[in-house]
């Protein structure tokens, strides 16, 4: 470029400054063209960032959502030792939960089941912690409220069998004999401390116990809500764990621990295996295969779907961006011809273009990434009601990608430009 008189008539300036000014003037004098180039790379970068962010975030969030549709790992006491009658005690629940949570984040809920009598017909009553059960079982359709102290939630089948309405009262009685020999022994020992009357003789004579029940009449509860799940839950009466303990005359361990773990497939199976391997714990873990397999299949399917669609869209978008950039550069044939006629070497012309295009790419890339992040964030907020954290590596990739595409798209027109015969071009073909 040395010795060349620029269009600005400033031949004395250094090459570096000259170069900068030429590029800047190329950008500012043909603003519309520069805007087009920037728009093209913005669109490319926005599409790239948004689609990739969706592909990464959505299956993960979907699987998180799926976790609130029932447990995928259940732990029950082993039915042989005396522990079965006592259930899994609190310390063991904590221990098991620690074992699970060491491997994967999990939500946990415990259930204690007892057979109770309502109008002398037997029903199953479960003692639960409302908040925890609710967190795992998002799909339970509850009219009214979840169990609270003094309030029970009844299954829809129980409700229709007994003609129960929300706000109504039911009297629930507990008979030790209903809950098997071992259980009655356990509750007898528990209730003896509570100085209950009939407990020690309960297991010996059935008739006597039922008269006891009729004398006592049971405890009165308010029906706080009715639950409908379409499963066996419809036949169960739910109360808070404390209420059931009071009714049964003593606290007892859980009969069932439900986990909704983040792990799936073989990872979950290995957690179950490791719990089962510890025979001293007296518990048995089981994965809920039905939900597990289906969940992992659906997630894999969604992942494939999103990635595939994104790749198709991205490839096409980038080809589109490339052609736009190409057309913008090739519009400047005349200018290139003029410069060459004035004595600029082909390499110099090429360098200028190679410096100009990445600028469009960089600018558009940054703009597009911001836009894409905004779109992905809005999408996540709308569909999953969750915030999307910024993915910096992805942002870097999307900016670099748009710079790269801009440069690639410049190669062909510049090659062509270097072959331009100034005379032909200046004569306007």
């Amino acid at each position, binding site marked *: 470029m040395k010795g060349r008189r620029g269009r600005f008539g400033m031949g004395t300036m250094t090459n570096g400054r000259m170069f900068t000014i030429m590029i800047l003037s190329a950008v500012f004098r043909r603003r519309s*063209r520069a805007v*087009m180039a920037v728009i093209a790379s913005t*669109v490319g970068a*926005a*599409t790239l960032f*948004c689609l990739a962010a*969706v592909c990464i975030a959505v299956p993960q969030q979907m699987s998180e*959502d*799926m976790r609130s*549709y*029932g447990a995928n790992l259940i732990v029950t006491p082993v039915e042989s030792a005396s522990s*079965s009658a006592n259930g899994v005690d609190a310390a063991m629940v904590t221990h098991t939960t620690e074992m699970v949570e060491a491997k994967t984040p999990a939500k946990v809920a415990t259930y204690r*089941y007892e*057979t109770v009598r309502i109008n002398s*017909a*037997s029903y*199953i009553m*479960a003692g639960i912690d409302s908040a925890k059960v609710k967190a795992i079982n*998002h*799909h339970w359709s509850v*009219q009214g409220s979840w169990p609270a102290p003094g309030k029970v939630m009844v299954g829809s*089948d129980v409700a229709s*069998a007994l003609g129960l309405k929300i706000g109504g009262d039911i009297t629930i009685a507990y008979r030790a004999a209903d*809950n098997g020999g071992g259980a009655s022994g356990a509750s007898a020992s528990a209730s003896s401390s509570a100085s209950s009357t009939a407990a020690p003789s309960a297991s010996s004579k059935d008739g006597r116990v039922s008269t006891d029940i009729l004398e006592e009449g049971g405890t009165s509860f308010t029906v706080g809500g009715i639950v*409908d*799940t*379409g*499963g*066996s839950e419809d*036949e*169960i009466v739910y109360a808070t764990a404390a209420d059931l303990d009071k009714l049964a005359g003593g606290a007892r361990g859980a*009969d*069932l621990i439900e986990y909704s773990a983040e792990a799936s497939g073989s990872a979950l199976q290995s957690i179950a295996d490791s719990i089962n391997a510890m025979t001293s714990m007296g518990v048995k873990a*089981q994965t809920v*295969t*039905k939900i*597990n397999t*289906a969940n992992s*299949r*659906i997630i894999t*399917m*969604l992942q*494939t*779907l999103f990635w*595939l*669609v994104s790749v*198709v*869209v991205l490839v*096409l*978008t980038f*080809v*589109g*961006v490339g*052609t*736009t950039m190409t*057309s*913008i550069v090739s*519009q400047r044939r005349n200018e290139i011809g003029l410069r060459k006629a004035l004595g600029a070497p082909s390499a110099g012309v090429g360098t200028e273009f190679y410096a100009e295009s990445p600028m469009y790419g960089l600018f558009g890339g940054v703009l597009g990434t911001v836009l894409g992040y905004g*779109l992905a964030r809005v999408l996540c907020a709308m*569909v999953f009601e969750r915030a999307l954290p910024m993915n910096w590596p992805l942002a870097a990739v999307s900016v670099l990608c748009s710079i790269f595409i801009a440069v690639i798209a410049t190669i062909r027109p510049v090659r062509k430009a270097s072959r331009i015969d100034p005379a032909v071009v200046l004569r306007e073909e």
Partner: protein
Amino acid sequence: MFLNRMVFRSLSRQLSRRILIAVSVGLSACVSVAMLGVVFDVGDKLNAELSTYGSNIVVQPKSDAVVSDLYSANDADSSGSALDSDPASFIKESDIPKIKTIFWAYNITDFAPQLNTHAKVGVNCGGDSSGAACHSVSAPLVGTWFHKKITASTGESSTVGVQGMRSWWKLTGSWAKDDSDQAMIGSTLAKELGAAVGDTLTVGKGNATQQLRISGIFDSGDDDNGAVYLSSSAVQQLAGLPDQVDRVEVKALTTPENDLARKAARNPGALSQADWETWYCTAYPSSIAYQIEEVIPGSVAKQVRQVAALQGDVMQKTQAVMILMTALSLIAAAIAVANLMAAAIAERSSEFALLKAIGATDASVSRLVVMETASVSLFGALIGAGLGSAAAQVVGHVVFGSGITMRPMVFVLVFVLLAVTVLAASLSGIRSILRLRPAEVLHGR
């Protein structure tokens, strides 16, 4: 005709430049057709995928749903297993195919009746000595259909059964045949009895005994692992309950529930006439359950909320994501086309200026531009639509294992969208041409 010739000449002489526009329009058409094609079909495809969760509606006898476990205190021990007792009320097995005659019959993909009972089960006990000689345990029996061909009263025949509803079973051996002496047993029970595929299974209830051949051992990961699955006729014979079943599992393609469906599920009678019709004619789980109750006398159909709600959730979210992704790519496509069109027209300003200088009117120049652009874009759009359909099929085969049904709507939408975009872009280009002063342009900058 002069115009046509002009357009043709311009197209043939500057082919490479026109190709750029065609390529760009084609790419946009390709993306839009592929995305819209997938989005319109994704509901059906997802529904089919979601059926891996198993049945989403359960039909029970009316009285059973209410009092089944009223007096089951003896069994009720730990896990809420009041279901251990034998059922006391039934649905007629011959009524079951009527499920295929409801309004949403096409959405019922599979169903299987069950007759549950308990019996003494032993392995390789020999024909006559059923008891002392061999180890036998009491186990739940499930009499069902495995892969049965049924013909509804409408004359339509279909194949239904548990085979299509237990996708999560890990099976050794093969599925049992309907109305035969074949049985399948759960892995826990098989271990307890020491049974293997091909062994003879002796089941006895009261005085009746039957010899069955084990065709397969399954691992279901739930309570079924302790059960025996055999054909419904065998259990009916054993239990002395001809033509009776106590539970039907139904798998249906459903629409995610909304407020209307929830309101209707509580009490269909409370809906207004218009709402009722909308509800009845939409494939909500609750309306399908209601229609099943209508055709099977004395039954209660309940939606399995875990499955139904999960399916609804996955479906809604995936569709929402897909629609947003489609909208995004459509916008990207439109911007790309508009951008390139504007660039292409600006590039030719001197040519148009020359035309104007030698006396072409604004109208004829505009016509030339529009005609040219339209023909090039149409060419690009046609090829793009073809490629887009192919891309959609690839997505369908890779993700869902089946082709995507391209709805005509997709093509109409894409062509309208492209036409609007191309026209808008060329209009802005034309405006700049009309403002051209031939002298200035021809003289050069």
